[in-house]
């Protein structure tokens, strides 16, 4: 064979292989076929499909302390005591500062490029991301609520106002490894439906930071399990409490819902348990009760034992829907690439429902999203949440 022909043949073969690789890549990453790839690559059928015998054998009732109305109220008080040092959340707590009309006023962005260059997954700041939101026709403007916790920790919540509000506030709590700006399509879906959205990041993400760098390890480290400060759980829950108080007292909201993703799902679960004003809560891919956890499924911010001594996760779920008008729907991704995958969360659904009946509570549901293999709130999930929010059965 002549050298030139051989040379052409090499490129032809390479071209054929690359075309094949392109199509294999399509099917490798397409959600519908990726699910099969992940199931095929799983170490055992217990990863995604089957439930471990020890989990099947466990009785959810063994992990619940709530037995009646009195015990529910007492345990909610215990939870509040651990978080804030008081039996009731402080309904007078307000944001320390409210920065109004960011879209209209366009704050200075001189400090933005450097931050984005350093780490755009974790340090996207609200005043630097306004370009994402300026084209939304349904968005009237954005305020920023700033809440200080302890001596140095500052938390920021973006308050998104729709042009045609429907009177419902939806708190969106994001988790680790991204900011709520990465979830802007979810926020947009809510704004388009008329919901006012209070968007919050996890500790250390976005605008949530410690004022003095030398304090960073101690106050901002709470999100990573360094709990050596008084009432450390305040860093997660006080900003949300202040935002709810602000929305209720200054803006007149009485209908409040909360959506949380990943670690934000856990924060949603606790916040809905401790603050009865949250009538609808939707934690997505955010936790698993310890007795159903697999290795590595307890992130550092969930390792504050006093919180779980006060109320187990199952007790928290009961508290989140402990009145007839309240509802919690938990969503888990069956093929989640990150965590809390499988259908094991269904194991405690009946026990929680029975407990709700026992205390005159509302509705509790666990939904399994099998439409994709990602760690995300899917179109299916957000569509369900929007439909559920729009049912019109608010108190």
């Amino acid at each position, binding site marked *: 064979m002549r050298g030139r022909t051989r040379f052409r043949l090499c490129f032809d073969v390479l*071209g*054929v292989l690359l075309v094949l690789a392109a*199509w294999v890549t399509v099917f490798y990453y397409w959600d519908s076929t990726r699910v099969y790839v992940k199931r095929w690559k799983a170490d055992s059928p217990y990863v995604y499909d089957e439930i471990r015998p020890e989990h099947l054998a466990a009785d959810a009732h063994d992990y619940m302390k709530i037995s009646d109305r009195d015990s529910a109220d007492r345990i909610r008080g215990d939870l509040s005591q651990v978080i804030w040092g008081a039996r009731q959340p402080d309904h007078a707590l307000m944001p320390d500062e409210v920065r109004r009309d960011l879209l209209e006023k366009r704050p200075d962005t001189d400090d933005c490029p450097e931050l984005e260059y350093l780490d755009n997954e974790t340090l996207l700041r609200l005043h630097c991301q306004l370009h994402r939101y300026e084209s939304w026709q349904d968005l009237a403007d954005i305020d920023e609520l700033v809440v200080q916790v302890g001596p140095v920790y500052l938390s920021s919540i973006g308050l998104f106002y729709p042009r045609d509000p429907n009177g419902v506030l939806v708190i969106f709590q994001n988790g680790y490894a991204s900011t709520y700006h990465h979830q802007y399509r979810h926020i947009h879906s809510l704004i388009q439906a008329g919901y006012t959205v209070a968007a919050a990041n996890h500790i250390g993400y976005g605008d949530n930071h410690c004022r003095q760098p030398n304090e960073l390890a101690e106050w901002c480290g709470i999100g990573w399990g360094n709990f050596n400060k008084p009432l450390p759980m305040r860093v997660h829950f006080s900003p949300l409490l202040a935002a709810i108080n602000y929305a209720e007292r200054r803006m007149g909201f009485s209908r409040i819902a909360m959506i949380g993703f990943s670690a934000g799902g856990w924060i949603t679960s606790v916040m809905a348990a401790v603050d009865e004003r949250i009538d609808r809560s939707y934690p997505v891919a955010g936790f698993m009760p310890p007795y159903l956890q697999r290795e590595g499924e307890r992130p550092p911010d969930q390792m504050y034992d006093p919180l779980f001594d006060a109320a187990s996760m199952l007790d928290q779920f009961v508290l989140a829907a402990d009145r007839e008008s309240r509802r919690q729907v938990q969503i888990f991704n069956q093929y989640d690439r990150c965590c809390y995958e499988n259908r094991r969360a269904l194991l405690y659904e009946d026990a929680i429902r029975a407990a709700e009946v026992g205390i005159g509570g509302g509705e509790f549901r666990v939904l399994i999203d099998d439409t994709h293999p990602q760690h*995300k709130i899917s179109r299916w999930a957000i569509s369900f949440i929007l439909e559920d929010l729009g049912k019109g059965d608010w108190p």
Partner: protein
Amino acid sequence: MKRLWTPVSMYWRLALVLAAIAASIVAGLLWWADGAWPYSAMPTKGFVRTLAFSAAAVASLGVSRLWR
């Protein structure tokens, strides 16, 4: 036997180029459909990798065609 070693014909090469472009289009539609991430059925990483393989395939087949 000699025929077996002959580089792919012009028609086959054209079909392969179209197949590569089609892979990119399919990946792009899956990525963009329903509003891109997180609603799409294809993550950005998958779309980018498909694009890269398709572009490399077209380039490879193009080099082969041009090398007369």
